[in-house]
């Protein structure tokens, strides 16, 4: 993306943008709506790839179905756009057979936590060596804005015309509870922190789960009077609180209450043996309680009670 406009002495004309080779330029224009957050998340992932020090051909991107599931199609690494909910077990197959590859799953909240929820919890329990970027836009966007397991209480959608009465998932709490080694939540406003979290996930030996809150002005914003995507970004800026030591059961997102914070951060980072199916040797005895996790939990509680 070279430009010839107003060249100053500080301007360096480059032949290509640093991330060009990691994007499939021949796939553009993309299918995403104006002000959708997915493009920013793709950008963060691509930047993390370029900064990871891991060669391009050792990265693999797997996605499921939905707007977020289309992400794999724009990234110029070996990429697999699988079926609804099955990105994680497909990625497991690659990661187990080729442990030298760095497999990232990019998919949506509905894909990963509703139809694919069982695979998510078991891959986390096993501590499969995967980085999961879970794009949470609070609804099923591709199909036109239906409620899902992350839709906030009272939020409207085409299948909750009177407001949702189901309690949504608190995804970092879920991921931690089922054994993820790295757990973070950021928004598309936090592109630097998000990129750093993805990088940490890539270098983590084990299951890394990163929730990214992302505006869907078409599917979620419109029925909930959030207006344009920029307005949702303003809400993130106004309400987000960074707290790496947050007490995870308490970090539900209440989008209807403008006074409640949206807690973001890198919440969990522990070492656990990654999933590595046996090669004919007897497995280790019953694992002892994980001191790191216990310590992290205590620490979370203490720091949370200490206020923020």
């Amino acid at each position: 993306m070279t430009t010839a406009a107003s060249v100053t002495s500080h301007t360096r004309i480059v032949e290509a943008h640093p991330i060009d080779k990691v994007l499939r330029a021949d796939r553009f224009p993309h299918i995403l709506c104006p002000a959708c957050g997915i493009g920013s998340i793709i950008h963060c992932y691509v930047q993390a790839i370029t900064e990871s020090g891991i060669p391009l051909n050792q990265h693999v991107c797997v996605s499921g179905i939905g707007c977020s599931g289309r992400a794999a199609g724009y990234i110029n690494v070996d990429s697999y756009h699988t079926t609804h909910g099955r990105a994680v077990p497909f990625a497991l197959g690659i990661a187990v057979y080729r442990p030298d590859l760095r497999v990232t799953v990019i998919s949506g909240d509905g894909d990963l936590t509703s139809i694919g929820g069982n695979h998510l919890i078991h891959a986390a329990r096993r501590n499969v060596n995967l980085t999961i970027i879970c794009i949470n836009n609070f609804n099923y966007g591709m199909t036109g804005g239906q409620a899902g397991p992350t839709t906030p209480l009272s939020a409207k959608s085409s299948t909750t015309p009177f407001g949702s009465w189901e309690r949504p998932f608190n995804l970092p709490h879920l991921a931690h509870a089922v054994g993820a080694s790295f757990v973070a939540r950021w928004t598309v406003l936090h592109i630097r922190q998000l990129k750093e979290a993805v990088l940490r996930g890539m270098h983590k030996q084990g299951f890394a789960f990163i929730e990214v809150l992302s505006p869907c002005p078409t599917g979620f914003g419109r029925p909930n009077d959030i207006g344009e995507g920029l307005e949702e970004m303003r809400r993130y800026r106004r309400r987000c609180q960074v707290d790496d030591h947050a007490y995870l059961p308490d970090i539900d997102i209440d989008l209807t209450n403008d006074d409640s914070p949206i807690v973001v951060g890198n919440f969990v980072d522990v070492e656990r043996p990654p999933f590595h199916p046996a090669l004919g040797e007897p497995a280790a005895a019953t694992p002892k309680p994980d001191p790191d996790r216990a310590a992290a939990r205590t620490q979370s509680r203490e720091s949370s009670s200490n206020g923020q």
Partner: protein
Amino acid sequence: MGADTKVAGSPRLMVGEHFMLGDHACAEGALAAGLDFFAGYPITPSTEICERLAHRLPQVGGRFVQMEDELGSIAAILGASAAGARSLTATSGPGFSLMMENIGLAVMMEIPCVIVDVMRGSPSTGLPTLVGQGDVFQARWGSHGDYSIVAFSPSSPQECFDLTIRAFNVADQLRIPVFLLMDETIGHMTERVVIPPADQIPRTPRKRPGHAPGEKLFLPFKADGDLIPPMAHAGEGYNVHFTGLTHDERGYPALNAQAHEELVMRLSRKVSAHASEVTLVEEVYLEDAEVVVVTFGCTARSARRAVNLARQRGIKAGLLRAITLWPFPEEHVRRLSESGRVKRFVVPEINLGQVCREVERLTSLPVDRINRAGGAMISPQSIMEVIAA
């Protein structure tokens, strides 16, 4: 479990003569074929395949994963195969039903894999420990839309071994999912199984890209004259994109009627174009037969006895055993139908009429059905009575 691996040959290949369970013979066949990756979920009557591989596969450098469910099992073997593994899962009817969506993905992404379905009494939970043959049509038509696959049906533990190897070779050759449609009787039958030395085990490799990555643009879905595209694996540097969406030769989504027509027609034709290579039958007394029993799986064992009994009574009976169930051996049935000598077909099967429909659409001669809902084999006597009728 408890596989005695202290025999001649490499640990992977238990060369020699064995008294072996059908399910175990299937697992040994997969190992002989070079199985790299197994993902499965326990289900009767296929569990012994899973157990055998849990014990054996890690010992030969392969990876065994017990998944959370069958949806995960099929997805995992597709992922591993996309990365270059020879991969397998084994299940029974209920699990096979759960795998159907991703069988369509395997077809669309052209990812080779082998899926064993040990059939039991059905529908639903049915008769978990008793025989059925009701998944014949599910194997052919179970996933949504039009596509073609290959399915083999063994009638003995030896064939469980042999056909599992063949299934891997056909899967890799055609880049399709291949099914081994066993049944509970065959899976749980113990019989003589001979495992040959390595140099007698054929291996068909996958067709691979003809140039190094980066040399020029690789089109992962551009087929050659045989309608099969070369396959690049994850991590090789070809930067491939695979999608279940209708796609072009580059692998990119192409959501229009023309691209769909081209892709779906090719996926179907690549199997029909190679049908004669993959169609296996066994023919008994067909040179002068007037009544032909068309059969498969465990029922073929009763049918063979029935045909012999009929011959003893002077009835010119013969047997056509479909070792390949899909593509159905159409030409064999047509040739018999048009021979002028055959007067009647008899189709016994442990379902309410599936293979008989194939025979009926291929002939204008009478087709006598023998159907049982499941739970027990069809006796030779009852087949004999219909032959003699």
